[in-house]
């Protein structure tokens, strides 16, 4: 019996082998490789022969004058993205739900999903063009109201908000999908009963619609907790310049410059490990909370 069972299971184990090997090489070996954070890593010497320096890379990091500014920029941009990335799609989904299943609704949906599918290279190019202070479309439009040209991508007062707003613009539409799905599960007879009781539209939204999708809102909010240190490398890398390092440089862009431009591998890895460990704790907590509150399971 046991042998038969084993024979039946063997193909299942075999199906996992290629995936296990690939993940081992390209995900688990780099995890082990992050011990180079404690080395003065030199590529020609490799992981085994580079000199161990203890916590020196971390000390160097925490003494860097930019480090705390970069950490603040990261958290500031990421947290605002999380907050508005929740509110805007919920509001738009509720408004979209008010329109019946019409052709107009389908067109609106198609259009607001569009920016999600384009890369930040493409959208970076688009934004650099339309946000230009000299003759970009946006500043020309603002000029109609006698507003002086704003240097959105080169002014430290504007840059973080340009980043946050353009990210919301890119993702709000796609994020409505889960809320729209949740809205369809609300029982229509609840609204009918509310109308008989004389509840107006606001009342209906507050006491039926929002409570109806609250579990999904809580789930999405919890899961987004893991992104507190993810301010969006792809976006910022394609929109920032030395002019706005002060307000727009984030952990990931700093890791890139220290590691791949300055070739200070040990320091960059230390910075990466710092970020990975905190993110790991946050993601674990968020999944655990999602499991406790919303009975969410990853698999």
């Amino acid at each position: 019996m046991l042998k038969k069972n084993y024979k039946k299971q063997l193909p299942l184990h075999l199906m996992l082998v290629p995936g296990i090997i690939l993940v081992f090489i390209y995900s688990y070996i780099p995890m082990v490789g992050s011990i180079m954070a404690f080395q003065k890593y030199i590529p020609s010497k490799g992981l085994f022969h580079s000199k161990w320096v203890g916590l020196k890379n971390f000390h160097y990091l925490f003494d860097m004058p930019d480090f705390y500014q970069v950490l603040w920029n990261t958290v500031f941009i990421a947290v605002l993205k999380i907050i508005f990335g929740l509110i805007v799609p919920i509001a738009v989904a509720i408004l979209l739900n008010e329109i019946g299943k019409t052709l107009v609704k389908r067109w609106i949906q198609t259009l607001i999903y569009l920016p999600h599918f384009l890369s930040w290279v493409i959208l970076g190019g688009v934004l650099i063009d339309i946000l230009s202070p000299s003759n970009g479309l946006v500043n020309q439009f603002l000029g109609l109201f006698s507003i002086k040209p704003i240097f959105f991508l080169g002014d430290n007062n504007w840059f973080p908000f340009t980043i946050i707003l353009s990210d919301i613009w890119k993702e709000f539409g796609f994020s409505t999908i889960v809320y729209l799905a949740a809205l369809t599960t609300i029982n229509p007879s609840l609204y009918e009963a509310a109308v008989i009781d004389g509840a107006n539209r606001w009342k209906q939204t507050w006491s039926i619609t929002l409570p109806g999708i609250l579990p999904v809102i809580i789930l999405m909010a919890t899961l987004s907790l893991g992104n507190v240190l993810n301010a969006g490398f792809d976006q910022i890398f394609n929109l920032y310049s030395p002019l706005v390092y002060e307000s727009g440089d984030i952990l990931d862009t700093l890791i890139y410059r220290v590691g791949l431009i300055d070739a200070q591998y040990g320091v960059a890895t230390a910075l990466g490990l710092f970020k990975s460990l905190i993110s790991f704790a946050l993601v674990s907590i968020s999944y655990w909370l999602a499991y406790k509150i919303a009975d969410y399971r990853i698999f």
Partner: protein
Amino acid sequence: MVEGKSLGSKMFRVFNYTFLILLAVMCLIPLIHIFAVSLSSNVAASAGIVKLWPKDFTFKSYEFVLSKGEFLLSLWVTVKRVVLGTALSMFLSILIAYPLSKSGRELKFRTGYAWYFVFTILFSGGLIPWYMTIRSTGLLDSIWALIIPGAVPVFNVILLLNFYRGLPKELEEAAFVDGASHWKTLWRIYVPLSMPSIATIGLFTVVGHWNAWFDGLILMNSQDNYPLSSYLQTVIVQASLTNMSAEQLKNLATVSDRTVKAAQIFVGALPILAFYPFLQKYFVKGMVMGGVKE
């Protein structure tokens, strides 16, 4: 919601339609503008008089872009990575999701295997060790560097395994009674029934490969091996932002290659613009399955 017939209710409907249509238009206008610039003459574009309709209509920018050797070379690299990368990723996702969709009784260590994969989305070694690993496996400067390291998309595996689990068990049992192996059951029963899900992750994978630019930028030493997105990153973004003074950056949009940049942006976006609307039905379903499964 129940439609009211009062004045307030009518006013709300007018406001709501207007607002949502404006929102949708805002998602499209920047691209229409870029398209209009790409079809305008240099003079008109530099003068900043092109809005949403081309001025002095011309195909010159497109002719220039499509005759550039580097552009065509990088397009070819992208075509290769999309085809090979998607094929490999889809094959592995379909294959890995099947055993993981079984219960712990049907597959020993099932939970352990699942965590082995899921752990990689919770924790990563970071940029530098990842780069060093790819370097020491000798993939630098080869197309395989863009395909193999990311060949197991764990999110897609999870999405697919959740779909597999929703399939009726009876079908599988009937197949086993008829003497079908796991391999046959997977390809003859699971895969045909999972097409909505497979279309979703297929779309995500194709878009992901088409859009990926950072890996090409750092893993390819020679520009000849850049995929299109990496190439566009260097000619559209890097050329605009790196090492420029405030004054130069301000005048950026007035330099003469604005129309050429616009044409390149549009060509880079075109395949996606052409395909995603037709797959809307699928990715909406896929997102819902992946995001909220109750």
